[in-house]
């Protein structure tokens, strides 16, 4: 696996796509939790493992020595072999109820050359994977687990997208946890709480989760 050093405490792992980033995050979690070899200091565990679209950041290592050990270890790891050796089944998918009345539903229907109803059907029939989070706490970049048509971003972002908006952009689907500026195409809205700092699991959607959207009547 290709890596780049980031300062004295971090490594950037380079991957092909968002799905690989999720797999690499799991791989790093596994490697960090393996018992140390006899006679060798245990491998230092990172504080943060941050997947993104083409990278995974491994951050919060104690110093350059630990960074080099991780770099050497990862240089000899094949993501393909790791994936092939995994047997644990994926967890139950999260279901998010959506009222499909988004302001950009017609735009998406035009881009896909179909009806509004067909957009809803397509969106609700697709299984999504949470690839990574960012932008604001609890905002998840989800990719389809099967072929799914892309949608361009809005040319002019909205100054305020309401919290709970379900939106598409590029290859991603996301839900705005709170009202923020945003340039994604809005297809619907949910009352699900995407982020609540007082819950044991603060984010409803976390990297590696699968999810489905379910249409509710308006």
């Amino acid at each position: 696996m290709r890596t780049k050093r980031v300062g004295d405490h971090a490594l950037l792992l380079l991957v092909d796509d968002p799905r690989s980033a999720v797999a690499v995050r799991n791989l790093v979690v596994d490697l960090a939790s393996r018992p140390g070899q006899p006679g060798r200091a245990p491998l230092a565990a990172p504080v943060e493992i941050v997947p993104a679209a083409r990278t995974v950041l491994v951050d919060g290592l104690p110093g350059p020595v630990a960074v080099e050990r991780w770099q050497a270890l990862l240089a000899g790891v094949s993501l393909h072999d790791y994936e092939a050796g995994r047997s644990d089944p994926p967890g139950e998918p999260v279901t998010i109820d959506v009222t499909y009345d988004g302001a950009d539903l017609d735009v998406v229907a035009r881009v896909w050359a179909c009806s509004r109803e067909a957009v809803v059907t397509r969106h609700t029939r697709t299984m999504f994977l949470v690839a990574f989070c960012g932008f604001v706490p609890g905002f998840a970049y989800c990719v389809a687990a099967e072929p799914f048509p892309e949608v361009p971003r809005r040319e002019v972002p909205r100054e305020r997208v309401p919290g709970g908006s379900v939106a598409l952009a590029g290859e991603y689907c996301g839900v705005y946890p709170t009202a923020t500026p945003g340039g994604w195409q809005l297809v619907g809205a949910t009352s699900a709480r995407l982020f609540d700092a007082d819950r044991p699991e603060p984010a409803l959607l976390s990297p590696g989760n699968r999810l489905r959207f379910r249409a509710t009547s308006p």
Partner: protein
Amino acid sequence: MRALRVEQADCLVLVEDLGRPGYAHLGVPRSGALDKVALALANRLVGNPEDHAVLEVLVGGVRLLAQESVRIALTGAQLPMVVGGRPAPWGTAVSVAAGSLVEVGPGPGGLRSWLAVAGGIDVPTTLGSRSTDSLSGLGPAALKVGDLVPVGPATPHADGSGQAAPARPLTGRAVLRLRLGPRDDWFTDASLAALLSGWYDVSPSSNRVALRLRGDPLARRAAGELASEGIVDGAIQVPGDGQPLIFLADHPTTGGYPVVGVILDDDLAWCAQLRPGDRVRFMPAT
């Protein structure tokens, strides 16, 4: 009730501790005190564990009334402090009698100070931290007049060491050591040479998210978009206008502009003290 009542707050005063490590994959910034060494030192001086929450004072101009007797210590920028009407020393534990005023005023150098109270600032935690995160809005609001700031019970050994701490000289200029990468290959050789030789002015738009700089813009080798990737503390990101910024504690967890280098830990605390108009240059770390 052990508390401080805010009588005056002409400046930004935030509660900060070591922040929220471990949640970056959910989009939650680390946050916490901009100088974690000064935070730990202020806590040690009053006998607190190093991770207790303190007050981060920007510029100065705050008056706090002690509801009960407390011990305090000020670290970071050497702002003038007056306790019960008398000048009080910086960098050492100071006793404050019940009903006395603690005044931290603007000073000639530096930008931020950390005021620790024996027992720690005892506001509720959010994701394990009492820090205010100015980017995501997690944590308590900035202090305002009339607030009662709760203080925890001081531990039995809470006399503190009482030793004065070494001060950082603050001259308005700073040389920051960096390690190039991970995306230095996005920039022309001439731009990298300029980055390592020129002076940059600190912009007034700097805050807890980033120290923003103005100087020779960095030019990219080629057009193209970088997919967003994870960001570390001290990352020097270069947006489209070519003007570098240094990410501080409240930085977003991911960013879509290339990071040309990363400031060494020991030099990152300087960034908390640089004022608009101060000057910065970069030096490769050896």
